[in-house]
């Protein structure tokens, strides 16, 4: 058995049924080895390696198992970089395999030789160079362990072609041990007690739940904790879906384009229970003034996240699931009576006001909110939504109701335009019996539009709904608000007919130009047997509001809805 065959066998042993990638000179041995195992594993030939990387992410995030993407040496591998970075920022477990010239050629500037190990170093959880065929199995095993255990993340593996071709003379190990990698899963009991006491003493507590609740599969436990404590819940973009957004205690997503009620609740809270969140600048606004009056309990599996951005009063290192279970256990012992708090009543009341205070379309052109309204009535709880990046993404984040984990997949930390389409195909292959709908923008969609070819060839039935305003809308909105409407480099023009592009790929194409067509045409598109692109012509200059000016204090959120929070509590 050669190195490549060993590699493929090891992938199969880790439950990998699908890989995503493009072949090339130095990875021929790998795909050749896969051919012999075609009953167990299949590579989906994408049209661009970036598509492969995002598909691997979509696969991983929908399924909760690592995704695998492959690129050949040089440009093949560098095309993976954006996806690796995206996975790094959003803590997605992917294994990225890059081809490399033969070891004796390394350092000679051989054809397509690229230092991918160096290029990816700042954006991976870890990386390896395969230097010895006999260590391929153990290296791949380590890669899976590192990608999935603790805080998930991407692992890059550089594969010199001669190592793939060389015979393997040793037997694969049963398990691997990595001395420097022992993530703390179980939280410290004393810290749990401190947190529980603080929570029970709090007058104005609030949860902020992030992506870690989803990656730790802790949604049920979290719901139990919320029910036990009766504390309102906000989430981050990555946490969307970890808690049922139709629940009366759900206040929605926080941050720059989050719900005012969710942001204002942070300002007024006296205790913030943050579970697996990063406190990124898009959430906190101005760091110095973020939640000045609140004590913060920060739960995270990654100790480096705690205290990185905000000052924390009770740090807890542990995975979301074990920590929430421990909290439930301790709180049940310490809790006396669950009184209805004035804080909660007020929040629920303001939430009602907030929900009604939404943009009112003028009725002529289609407003993005109207598409989301229709989708809310059409999609099922288990449907998977992916998004591109931009205004459409923020409309979906703000207004679309999600109730289950892994049903809203969006590029958060790196804001990667072009994420939605390949991510959708990854999710669909991961869970074929679920409907997958990609909410996209005309700018974002074009950034990985080539994957329509992959979708057609592999019969991947996903629906793409394009919020087409002929602009790079989010930047246009910034230019309108902060640059006095000086529109530089945001006009995409109106000459692209996405429905015709769909037809050219032998897929379904639809155009929606009137509000009255939305319901029927979207319903048909979602029901369709083959992948469909719906080109929805929307009002060109509608803004996603409310909005927090970058770096501003949370109370400076402007646009629509309730007034400032100061007089509330």
């Amino acid at each position: 058995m050669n190195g490549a065959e060993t590699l493929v066998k090891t992938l199969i042993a880790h439950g990998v049924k699908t890989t995503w990638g493009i072949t090339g000179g130095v990875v021929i041995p790998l795909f050749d080895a896969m051919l012999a195992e075609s009953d167990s594993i299949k590579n989906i030939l994408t049209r661009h390696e970036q598509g492969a990387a995002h598909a691997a992410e979509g696969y991983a995030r929908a399924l909760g198992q690592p995704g695998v993407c492959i690129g050949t040496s040089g440009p093949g591998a560098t095309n993976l970089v954006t996806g690796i970075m995206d996975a790094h920022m959003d803590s997605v477990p992917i294994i990225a395999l890059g081809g490399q010239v033969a070891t004796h050629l390394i350092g000679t500037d051989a054809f397509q030789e690229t230092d991918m190990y160096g290029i990816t170093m700042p954006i991976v959880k870890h990386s390896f160079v395969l230097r010895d065929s006999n260590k391929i199995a153990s290296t791949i095993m380590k890669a899976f362990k590192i990608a999935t255990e603790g805080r998930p993340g991407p692992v890059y593996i550089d594969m010199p072609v001669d190592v793939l071709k060389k015979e393997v003379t040793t037997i694969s190990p049963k398990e691997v041990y990595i001395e420097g990698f022992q993530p703390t899963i179980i939280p410290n009991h004393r810290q749990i007690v401190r947190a529980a006491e603080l929570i029970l003493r709090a007058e104005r507590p609030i949860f902020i739940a992030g992506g870690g609740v989803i990656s730790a599969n802790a949604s049920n436990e979290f719901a139990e904790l919320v029910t036990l404590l009766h504390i309102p819940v906000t989430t981050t973009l990555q946490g969307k879906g970890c808690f049922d957004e139709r629940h009366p205690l759900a206040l929605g997503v926080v941050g720059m384009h989050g719900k005012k009620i969710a942001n204002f609740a942070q300002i007024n809270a006296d205790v913030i229970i943050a579970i697996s969140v990063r406190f990124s600048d898009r959430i906190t606004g101005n760091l110095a003034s973020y939640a000045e009056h609140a004590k913060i309990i920060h739960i995270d599996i990654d100790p480096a996240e705690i205290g990185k951005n905000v000052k924390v009063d009770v740090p807890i290192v542990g995975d979301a699931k074990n920590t929430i279970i421990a909290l439930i256990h301790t709180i049940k012992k310490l809790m006396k009576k669950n009184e209805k708090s004035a804080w909660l009543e007020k929040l629920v009341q303001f939430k009602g006001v907030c929900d009604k205070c939404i943009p009112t379309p003028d009725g002529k052109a289609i407003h993005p909110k109207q598409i989301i309204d229709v989708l809310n009535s059409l999609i099922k709880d288990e449907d998977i939504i992916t998004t591109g990046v931009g205004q459409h993404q923020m409309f979906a984040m703000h207004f679309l109701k999600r109730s289950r984990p892994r049903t809203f997949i969006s590029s958060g930390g790196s804001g990667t335009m072009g994420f939605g389409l390949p991510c959708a195909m990854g999710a669909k292959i991961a869970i074929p019996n679920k409907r997958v709908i990609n909410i996209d923008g005309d700018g974002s969609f074009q950034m990985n539009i080539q994957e329509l070819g992959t979708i057609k060839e592999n019969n991947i039935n996903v629906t793409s709904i394009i919020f087409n305003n002929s602009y790079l809308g989010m930047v246009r909105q910034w230019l309108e608000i902060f640059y006095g409407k000086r529109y530089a480099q945001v006009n995409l023009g109106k000459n692209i007919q996405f429905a015709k592009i769909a037809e050219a790929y032998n897929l379904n194409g639809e155009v929606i130009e009137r509000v009255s067509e939305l319901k029927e045409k979207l319903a048909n598109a979602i029901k369709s047997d083959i992948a469909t692109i719906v080109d929805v012509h929307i009002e060109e200059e509608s803004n996603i509001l409310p909005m927090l000016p970058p770096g501003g204090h949370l109370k400076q959120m402007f646009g629509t809805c309730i007034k400032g929070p100061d007089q509330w509590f």
Partner: protein
Amino acid sequence: MEKKHTIAITVEDQPGVFTRIAGLFARRSFNIDTITVGKSEKQGISKMIITVIGDDRDLERVEKQINKLIDTIKVTEMPKKSAFIAELCIIKVAVQDKKIRDDIFSYAKIYDAKIIGMTDKTLTMYLVGESENIESYIRLMVPFGINEISRTGVTAISKDW
């Protein structure tokens, strides 16, 4: 309050581990003052000693970020009172006449600096010790005219009690 901290890091001796750690400092905007790397008492394990300048919070963040690297086995702060800290400095000084030579000899004796090279125009010596000691010796050499200095950066080991 900003001050100098010495950190000892034991790492797996993997290709690229030095780049990984140095890159981390650059990426997170932590200031490295000195960095040294060498073999440890265990095969396959290297030890790096890094001095960084920052406040306690910076130090905590640095330690956590380094700890997060898979190749990192252990990160320990080496406070001055509980560690032996030393570096080596090689210094080349201009020598005009015998009087100056004699002066330098006497300073070298006090500071335990070892003369390793001598020409009619220069004296080369090295000394080992704490950075402060080395710096004060360098200050003494300034009036004579320093031609060149090479320093290793500090290394450290914990004290037993």
